[in-house]
C-alpha cells in the first residue's frame, strides 16, 4: 500500500510506494549481531497506514464549497429560510460527531487505542448566549408556573377566609342569644366544625322531679355548607307544640306555625352560593333563619317541659284536678260535670322541619293533631253545639297555660339568682311548688265556662228589661268576673233644685238618686250579688232602711240568679218611687216589692211589682192593689188574675211608672173615692 501525497492546487494524485515487506537490516552491533526492525502486528500496520492518510485536500474542497454556498446564499438572502444556518450548523456538527464516533468505535474495536479524554471545545459567544437564553426561558417558564400556583393558592385562601368569616361571624352573632358548645369527640362528619347549640334551659328545672322525657333535640349540631354559611341540623319530626282542645271540639281550627318572621330558606342560599360571592344580606337572612329555627326548637322544648310538669302534677291528688285519660303525649281532664279538656303534644307543622329547611318551603304549615282518637263534633247535634259555644277559646287557654308556667319558671329563676347572689339559701325553706298551677288552670277553665253561662243569663234578663243596662267590669283576674246592672231612673223636672228637709235626726239628702247599681261578682263558681237601694230583711222589721244592702247568696245557683236580680231591681224601682212620693209630700210606705199609699178610712192603695224570669214579654210587671181595712194586714189577696181589688198595669217603663205613681198620689190626695 503506498501512501499518497498531494501537492497544493494540483488535481493529480501522488503515489507513494511502500517499502517491500522484507526485513532490512538496520544495524550491526560490535559483536556482529544483526539488528532488525521489530515485527509489527497487523493492527500497528493498519494504524500506521491510517496516519499516512492525508485528509487536507478533502477539507479544502469542503471549505471551498462552503464559501461558494455562502456567497450564493448571501445573494439569495431575501429568499432564504431563517433557520437554514442553524440546520447547516447542526448538520456539520453531526458529521463531525459521526466521524469522531466512527473513529472511536474503530479504535476501541481494535483495542489499540482507548479514548483518554475529550475536552469541550470552547464555546462561541453565540452558543453561550443561546445557552443563557434557554436557561432564562426555562426559569421564566417555571416562574410563571409558580405564579399560577400562587394565584390559585391565594384564591383558595381568600375563599377559606370568606367562609370562615361568614361562619364565625354568624356563630358569634347567634352566640349573643344562644349557648354554644364545642364537641371534642371526633364524631363530626364532613362540613361539621364540632360545635352545637345547647337549647336546654336547666336553670328553671334543676330542682324539679326527674323529667322522664329525653330532650334529644336540646342539642342542635352546627354545620356549614360549601359557602361557609352556618347550617343547623334539626332532627326530623322533633318540634312539637302544646295543644289544648275540648273533647269533641271542632278540629278545623288550624294553627299556623312559622308564621312569625321569615323562615330559613336554604334555596335562596343555594342559588346565592352558585354566584361568585354571597352578599351580606344573604348571610343576614341565614342568621335570621337559623335564629328563628332555634327559637322554634326552644319553644318546643319549653312546651314539652310544661307538659311534663303537668303530668307530674297529676300524680298529686288535688281537688281541682280530675284526670280521665292519660297517654304519653296526651292528658285528658274533666272540667265540671259536662266537659273534658285535652292537653296534648302535637307535631309542629305538617311536614318534617328539617325537610322544610332543606327545600326552603316558606308557607305556613297546618298542625296535625297526634291524638286522632278525639271525637269529632256532629254539627247537627244542637245541644252539643250549644255547649261548645260556652267554652272559651282553646288558643287563649294555651296562651294562658304557657304564660302561667313561664311566670312560674321565671320567678323561680329570679329567686334562685337572688339566693345565690345575695344570701345563702335557707334550709327547709321550700323553693316553691308548681303543684297549684294545674289546679289553678283547671279552675280557671271551669270559671270561664261558668262565667259564660252566667253572662248569658244576665244578658237574657237585661234584654227583657228595657231600663236595665249591663256594664261588664274587668277584674284582671282569671277566676273572677264581675258585671254591673245599672238602673237609670228618669229625673223629672219637678224635682230640679228642690231640697227636702227631713227631721232633725236625719241628714238632708240634697240629691235624688238617678241610678242604681247591682253588682254581680263571680269568684270561681260562687256568685255574689251586691245591690243598693233595696231594703234589707232586717230593716224591714225595724223600719230602718239602709241605702246599701248586701245580699250574700252562698250556694247561689245559676237558676236562682235571675230571680234574685229581678227582685233586686224591682226593689230599687220601688225605692225610687218611694223617694219620689216622699218628695211630693205623700206619705208612702214600702215593703219589699210593694209601694203603699194610705187612703182615708184605713184603705191602702199599693203598687206591686211582679217578677218572672221566664216571662218573654218582660220580666217585671206591675199591679195595682187596693187593700181595705177588712183585709188582713200585710196580706194581699191570693189568686191570679184581675179582680176588684187588683188591676194589672203591664210592663211599664220608668216614665210610665212615675206617671202612674203621680196619678195614684193625686187619687189618694183626692180622697180615693171610687
Amino acid at each position, binding site marked *: 500500500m503506498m501512501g499518497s501525497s498531494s501537492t497544493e492546487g494540483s488535481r493529480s494524485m501522488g503515489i507513494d510506494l511502500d517499502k517491500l515487506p522484507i526485513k532490512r537490516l538496520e544495524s550491526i552491533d560490535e559483536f556482529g549481531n544483526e539488528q532488525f526492525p521489530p515485527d509489527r502486528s497487523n493492527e500497528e500496520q493498519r494504524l500506521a497506514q491510517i496516519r499516512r492518510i492525508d485528509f487536507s485536500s478533502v477539507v479544502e474542497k469542503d471549505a471551498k464549497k462552503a464559501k461558494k454556498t455562502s456567497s450564493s446564499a448571501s445573494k439569495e438572502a431575501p429568499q432564504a429560510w431563517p433557520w437554514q444556518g442553524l440546520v447547516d450548523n447542526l448538520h456539520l456538527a453531526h458529521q463531525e460527531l459521526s466521524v469522531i464516533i466512527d473513529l472511536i468505535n474503530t479504535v476501541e474495536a481494535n483495542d489499540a487505542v482507548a479514548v483518554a479524554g475529550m475536552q469541550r471545545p470552547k464555546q462561541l459567544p453565540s452558543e453561550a448566549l443561546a445557552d443563557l437564553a434557554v436557561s432564562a426561558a426555562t426559569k421564566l417558564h417555571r416562574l410563571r408556573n*409558580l405564579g399560577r*400556583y400562587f394565584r390559585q393558592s391565594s384564591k383558595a*385562601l381568600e375563599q377559606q377566609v370568606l367562609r*370562615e368569616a361568614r361562619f364565625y361571624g354568624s*356563630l358569634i352573632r347567634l352566640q349573643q342569644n344562644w349557648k354554644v358548645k364545642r364537641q371534642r369527640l371526633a364524631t363530626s362528619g364532613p362540613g361539621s366544625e364540632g360545635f352545637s347549640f345547647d337549647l336546654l334551659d336547666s336553670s328553671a328545672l334543676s330542682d324539679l322531679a326527674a323529667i322522664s322525657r329525653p330532650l334529644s333535640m336540646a342539642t342542635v349540631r352546627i354545620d356549614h355548607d360549601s359557602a361557609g354559611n352556618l347550617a343547623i341540623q334539626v332532627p326530623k319530626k322533633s318540634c312539637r307544640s302544646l295543644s289544648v282542645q275540648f273533647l269533641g271540639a271542632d278540629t278545623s281550627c288550624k294553627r299556623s306555625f312559622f308564621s312569625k318572621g321569615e323562615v330559613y330558606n336554604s334555596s335562596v342560599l343555594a342559588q346565592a352560593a352558585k354566584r361568585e360571592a354571597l352578599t351580606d344580606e344573604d348571610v343576614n337572612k341565614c342568621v335570621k333563619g337559623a335564629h328563628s329555627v332555634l327559637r322554634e326548637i326552644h319553644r318546643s322544648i319549653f312546651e314539652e317541659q310544661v307538659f311534663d310538669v303537668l303530668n307530674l302534677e297529676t300524680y298529686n291528688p288535688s281537688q281541682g284536678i280530675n284526670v280521665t285519660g292519660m297517654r304519653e303525649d296526651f292528658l285528658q281532664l274533666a272540667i265540671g260535670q259536662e266537659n273534658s279538656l285535652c292537653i296534648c303534644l302535637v307535631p309542629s307543622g305538617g311536614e318534617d322541619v328539617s325537610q322544610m329547611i332543606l327545600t326552603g318551603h316558606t308557607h305556613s304549615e297546618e298542625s296535625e293533631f297526634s291524638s286522632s282518637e278525639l271525637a269529632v263534633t256532629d254539627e247537627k247535634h244542637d245541644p252539643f253545639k250549644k255547649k261548645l259555644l260556652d267554652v272559651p277559646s282553646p288558643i287563649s287557654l294555651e296562651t294562658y297555660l304557657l304564660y302561667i308556667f313561664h311566670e312560674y319558671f321565671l320567678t323561680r329563676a329570679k329567686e334562685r339568682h337572688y339566693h345565690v347572689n345575695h344570701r345563702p339559701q335557707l334550709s327547709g325553706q321550700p323553693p316553691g311548688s308548681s303543684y297549684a298551677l294545674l289546679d289553678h288552670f283547671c279552675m280557671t277553665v271551669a270559671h270561664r265556662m261558668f262565667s259564660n253561662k252566667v253572662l248569658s243569663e244576665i244578658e237574657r234578663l237585661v234584654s227583657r228589661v228595657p231600663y236595665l*243596662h*249591663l256594664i261588664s267590669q*274587668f277584674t284582671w283576674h282569671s277566676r273572677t268576673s264581675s258585671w254591673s246592672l245599672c238602673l237609670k231612673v228618669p229625673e223629672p223636672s219637678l224635682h230640679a233644685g228642690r231640697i227636702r228637709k227631713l227631721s232633725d235626726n236625719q241628714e238632708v239628702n240634697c240629691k235624688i238618686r238617678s241610678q242604681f247599681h247591682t253588682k254581680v261578682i263571680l269568684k270561681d263558681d260562687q256568685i255574689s250579688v251586691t245591690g243598693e237601694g233595696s231594703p234589707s230583711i232586717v230593716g224591714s222589721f225595724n223600719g230602718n232602711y239602709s241605702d246599701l244592702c248586701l245580699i250574700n247568696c252562698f250556694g247561689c245557683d245559676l237558676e236562682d240568679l235571675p230571680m234574685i236580680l229581678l227582685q233586686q231591681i224591682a226593689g230599687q224601682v220601688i225605692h225610687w218611687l218611694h223617694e219620689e212620693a216622699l218628695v211630693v209630700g205623700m206619705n208612702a210606705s214600702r215593703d219589699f216589692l210593694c209601694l203603699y199609699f194610705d187612703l182615708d178610712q184605713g184603705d191602702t192603695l199599693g203598687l206591686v211589682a211582679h217578677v218572672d224570669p221566664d216571662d218573654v214579654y218582660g220580666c217585671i210587671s206591675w199591679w195595682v192593689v187596693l187593700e181595705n181595712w177588712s183585709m188582713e194586714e200585710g196580706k194581699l189577696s191570693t189568686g191570679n188574675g184581675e179582680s176588684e181589688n187588683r188591676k194589672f198595669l203591664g210592663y211599664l217603663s220608668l216614665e210610665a211608672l212615675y206617671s202612674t205613681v203621680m196619678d195614684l198620689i193625686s187619687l189618694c190626695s183626692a180622697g180615693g173615692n171610687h
Partner: protein
Amino acid sequence: MSKAGGAGSGPTAAAAAAAAQKQKTLLQRVDADVANIVDNFSLLINVARVNDPPFRNSQEAFQMEMRAARMVQAADSLLKLVSELKQTAIFSGFASLNENVDRRIEVFNQQAENTEKLLERIAEQAAASLKELETHYYSSVARTHQLDA
C-alpha cells in the same frame, strides 16, 4: 390579644400564667409563620437567578417549587391560627359574653315591661271600648224600639 392583660385581675394566678403562656405560644407561632414566608420568598428569589454558565436547572426548579409550597403552607397555618383565635374568643370570652348577656337581659326585660304595659293599655282600651259600646247599645233607639215592639 388583650385577654392576658385583663386575665390577671380576675382569675387565679395559675389561670393567668396559663393565659400568658398561651399568648406567648401563639405569638411565637405567628412569628414563625411570618418568618417562614419571608425566608422562603427570599430564597425563591435567589433561586430564580439565571446562572452563568447555566446548570442545575432541574435542581433549582425543584427548589423553587418547594419554597412556594412552604410559603403556602405557612399562610395556611396562619389562617388556622386565626380560626383558633376565633374559637378561643367564642368559648373563652366570658367577660364580654357576660356583659352581652346582661345587656340582652336588660333589653328583654325592658321589652317585656313594654309589652306588658302595651297589653295593659290594650286591655284598658278594650274595656273602655266595651263599656262605651255597651252604653251606646243599651241607650240606642233601636233597642228601645225593639223592646217596644
